[in-house]
């Protein structure tokens, strides 16, 4: 199975601190994407990192990808209460037409 697994399952931090979430997957990928989901709401695309990239930034987000370890991390710097949400990684397969495999998610709580 290609499914990713996020670690930790839950994370609680103070506003202003940095939050790091990790994702591991099992087989070769073309890209890895991170999504955010507020409770009971839709999935918001955050960032895509391709298999030939090692690091990518978008605002307060920093994503790394280590294909040798089949893992990725999402760092949110200077967290805000509005960052409270579940964060998922999603991978595709190097072969195949089109599905994303989602991990179990990390539930982030940022305490004001």
């Amino acid at each position: 199975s290609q499914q990713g697994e996020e670690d930790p399952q839950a994370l609680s931090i103070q506003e202003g601190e940095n939050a790091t979430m990790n994702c591991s997957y099992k087989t070769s990928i073309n890209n890895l994407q991170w999504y955010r989901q507020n409770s009971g709401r839709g999935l918001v695309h955050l960032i895509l990192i391709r298999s030939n990239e090692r690091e990518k930034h978008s605002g307060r987000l920093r994503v790394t990808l280590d294909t040798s370890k089949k893992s990725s991390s999402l760092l949110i710097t200077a967290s805000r209460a509005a960052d409270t949400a579940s964060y998922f990684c999603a991978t595709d397969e190097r072969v195949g037409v089109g599905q994303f495999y989602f991990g179990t998610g990390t539930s982030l709580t940022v305490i004001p």
Partner: protein
Amino acid sequence: EPEVTQTPSHQVTQMGQEVILRCVPISNHLYFYWYRQILGQKVEFLVSFYNNEISEKSEIFDDQFSVERPDGSNFTLKIRSTKLEDSAMYFCASSLYGTANTEAFFGQGTRLTVV
């Protein structure tokens, strides 16, 4: 900013009834998907659709399910004879290219409750 829109946001249906969930993907996108998320569980792939046909489907997507792009804008998921276990949030997504090359953008979801 373009977005994927889904209707209705919440649907309650009786067991055994048919439901149609509707989606309007981003207008220039070519690939369309349905996923579902049972409460507290993973987001699961149901089906992908390209060039007016199913390109990939999961084992969840059995004969009870069907998809259609009836016109140039809508993409629908039909569930025939709903079961209690079909209760979930259903997400539609679209992407410009296949999963290898581009982001997928998701709608806000339709919460389906089967009673």
